[in-house]
């Protein structure tokens, strides 16, 4: 099954997969749509990421997730790539996944026995592996509306400025209390482990505090600490650990800044 096929075609060409049947999901209307109500956004799993980044209301509410989706390849790819594809391809480096995880995004999965709902964080089980059954596919994503005084961010490190696979990715979302301290925080990293990983110690270091050099150091240290990366052609273990800390810290700062803006404090 494919949406934009931007990962499928290279895999076919490289002989890494040889399916007997390919199913194009883009013709199912529900899968290509963006909608919101008072509680949540619903984004069709095959919706081109260009539609998402081009949706001003969505991008204003979830700038981190929108930017992450916008990092999946070139403008040409953006007109084909989708959150569903980015997730189900199972790459540890998928840019949109840490951003979805920090925003608590849920996947609505359809199968022969109806639909079920699963946290995005539970979908990918390892490189190229998902918890979906062969006869299941993701219909859409549910994203709860961004609370007040909250902001999200996603940063990735690539050697060039575009067209690369993330060597490290870091997503963050924070909600501030009325006094400006951090009430809630979620930090998630990509490309540093077989699947996207949360950084609970960074989260607990932030919650209840205001951001300062000490908390940021704690965030960076915690982020480097949870990494379980590999040495490969794109980066080394040491590099990924070190930069995961740097990006986690920077993503937290951006998320806080956005939260403050949504609070009207700045």
């Amino acid at each position, binding site marked *: 099954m494919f949406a934009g096929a931007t990962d499928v075609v290279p895999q076919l060409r490289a002989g890494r997969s040889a399916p007997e049947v390919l199913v194009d999901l883009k013709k199912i209307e529900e899968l290509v749509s963006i909608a919101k109500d008072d509680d949540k956004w619903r984004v069709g799993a095959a919706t081109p990421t260009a539609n998402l980044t081009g949706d001003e209301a969505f991008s204003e509410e979830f700038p981190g997730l929108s930017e992450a989706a916008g990092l999946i390849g070139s403008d040409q790819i953006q007109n084909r790539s989708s959150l569903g594809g980015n997730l189900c391809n199972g790459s540890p480096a998928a840019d949109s996944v840490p951003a979805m995880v920090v925003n608590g995004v849920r996947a609505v999965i359809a199968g022969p026995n109806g639909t079920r709902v699963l946290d995005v964080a539970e979908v990918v089980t390892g490189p190229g592996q998902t918890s979906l059954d062969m006869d299941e596919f993701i219909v859409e994503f549910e994203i709860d509306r961004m609370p007040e005084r909250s902001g999200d961010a996603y940063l990735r490190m690539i*050697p060039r400025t575009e*067209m690369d696979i993330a060597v490290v990715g870091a997503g963050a979302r924070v909600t501030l209390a009325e006094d400006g301290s951090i009430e809630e925080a979620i930090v998630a990293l990509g490309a540093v482990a077989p699947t996207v990983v949360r950084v609970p110690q960074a989260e607990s270091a932030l919650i209840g505090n205001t951001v300062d050099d000490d908390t940021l150091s704690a965030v960076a240290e915690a982020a480097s600490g949870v990494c379980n990366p590999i040495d490969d052609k794109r980066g080394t273990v040491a*590099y990924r650990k070190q930069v995961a800390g*740097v990006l986690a810290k920077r993503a937290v700062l951006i998320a806080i800044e956005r939260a403050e803006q949504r609070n009207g404090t700045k």
Partner: protein
Amino acid sequence: MAIIEENPGYKWVGTRPIRPDGLEKVTGKAQFGADLMLPGMLFGKVVRSPHAHARIVSIDTAAAEAMVGVKAVITGSDFPDLAANGAHASDIDVANNAIAREKVLYEGHVVAAVAATTREQAEAAAKAVEVTYEILPHVLTVDEAMAEGAPLLHEGMITKGVDPAPEEPSNIASKILHERGDLDQGFGEADVVVEREFTTKPVHQGYIEPHAAVADANTDGRAHIWCSSQGHFQMRAYSATVLGVSPGTLKVTAAEIGGGFGGKTVIYLEPLAVRLSQRAGRPVKLVMDRDEVFRATGPTSGTRIRVKMGVSKDGKITAAEVWMAYEAGAYSGSPVGAAGMTAIACYDIPNFVVEGYDVVCNKPRVAAYRAPGAPMAAFAVESVLDELARDIGMDPIDIRLANAAVEGTQASYGPKFPRIGFVETLEAIKDHPNYTAELGPNQGRGVAAGFWFNAGMMSSATVHINENGTATVVTGSPDIGGSRQSMALMAAEELGISYESIKAVVADTETVGFNDVTGGSRVTLATGAAVVDACRLIVEDLRARAAKTWDVEVDQVEWVDGQAQHVDGSQPPLSLGDLAAKSGRTGGPISANASLNSRGVGAGFSTQLCDVEVDPETGVTRVVRYLTAQDAGRAISPDYVEGQMQGGVVQGIGWALNEEYIHDQDGVMENPSFLDYRIPVASDLPMIDCAIVEVPNPAHPYGVRGVGEVGIVPPMAAVGNAINDAIDVRMTDLPMSPVRILEALTEQRD
């Protein structure tokens, strides 16, 4: 633009009109290598070795041949055994690289090829060819290849250039040596000595068009090849050698070429396509996938280079010692020779030793890449020079000016330099506002210089005057970056007619005289000289025809602004159109040929200035400002001179920061795609500022030197020197990737 000698009133040379082939290229009509379709054409597919080094035990083609749609399957045994025929060693290497015989020497080495009715059938048949290999131990780098007891690629390889000749074979094909003066004395006179060791990885030319060839063989042994190459005469010669036929039986038509940078001066697909076409009795198209391009063509050498240099306090280089080993890939012929000649050629150094080794290893055979061999050596030498300048507190331009080669300097590679423009490129940088532009936090500035010989070689041109006085300029030099425009501009200047009334074309091997490859920055110089010669013959002919018309002596006729004029004005002028319209009365069609082996090659120099910003936490480097100054001799076509300068710089920036071949332990390339072989994208770069320096080459009618190559020589050192300026870390290994920079920064902190 720094004009050293004013333009002597040219009307067309030095202008920026629209290129002759532009319209076809912006409308999608231009026919590149893979665009040709012939009736009944088959699709071919090449079978390649998955092993870096292996003996071919057997090849079973029966299953492939039996498949639906398959029309031909060929292997090495379908080609003459040149070794048994006593052919020249270099021809044997060309043939064995085109298709392996006893051994495969790198992952991607061709072992067989198939042709079938459809693409899909060809791909399936290629998979069905069963090759049995005996895997042999391999060597991937100069270090591994030169190590004691290393597995040998070629059992009979005895190092050339060593006295006495070694008795034992090795992977070292040859040694080169240049020396002058007394090294010990030179280092003794130095106040500061710096010694560093550098490594560089193989990098690919990265042309966007994969190799492609179509062949249509006749039953009488003749064949027509259409291919994308930098020299269709060269492809004819190589194909004839590999196929064991006379060159005259092959006609080669040059398709439009989608980039080459040296990598399309060698042969890969053409003889395979011919043999498949002969076996199948149908035309055959062979096109490489991108991963085949990476695995089996190009690249240029990976290297290890040691440089030791000394300077006195006043900035004079007193001695230089350079040791270098260049990967040749599977067959001898790395560009270490040119590296040895160019390494310190920018400078007048009294005492030096330059020693180099050409080393084979189990990677694709290296191909020429823009100033082949020079960029890596310059990276090492220019980095050390930068460090010396810092150590003695001297401006990086000033230290280069203090040692710069000028007219009459005995070049490090031997002869005395004629008039050259190195100093002028240094001054152009110093005079430019970029040199004093303010730098921000984490930003740094670097300077580096480079030298390249440029080349001459053989060219032919034919000029036809059409019946209305327009002209057709025919050459056999594939146009890779706008050379049809420079040909037309020079012809317009010579004939005195408008650029728009001239059509410049590239003809096939049966329609125009021999031309060497489009390489070595030679086409505007050499093929241009042939065009100028042919135009001058035409003008002589036109003067004679005018004299005949007026019944006067030919010395009474001048050719001015595209028309014949009587010296005393006693006759109304005859335009080229007038003379062409009546050519039947004055001797028939007006046409001339000129062929030459070019003389007067003019050396090229480039100095470049790079500003970078380094993120000290991630090691990511961005180029924020870039200036290149290059001596073009004369810019016939300034648009495309700038294009060559900018293109060379950006390839160099890619080489500096991100590009590299990555192989796994088995010698299999891990990054054979544009996703992971990271050439620069538009958003990585600033505008590339150009200062065209014009110190005319006295030996060329328009002062041309050639501009295609030298621009890629300085960038790696310019970037490295800028990084050093920004973060005080000397990078000695390419690419200077974020991972390496962060490692170096961490080491520095510890």
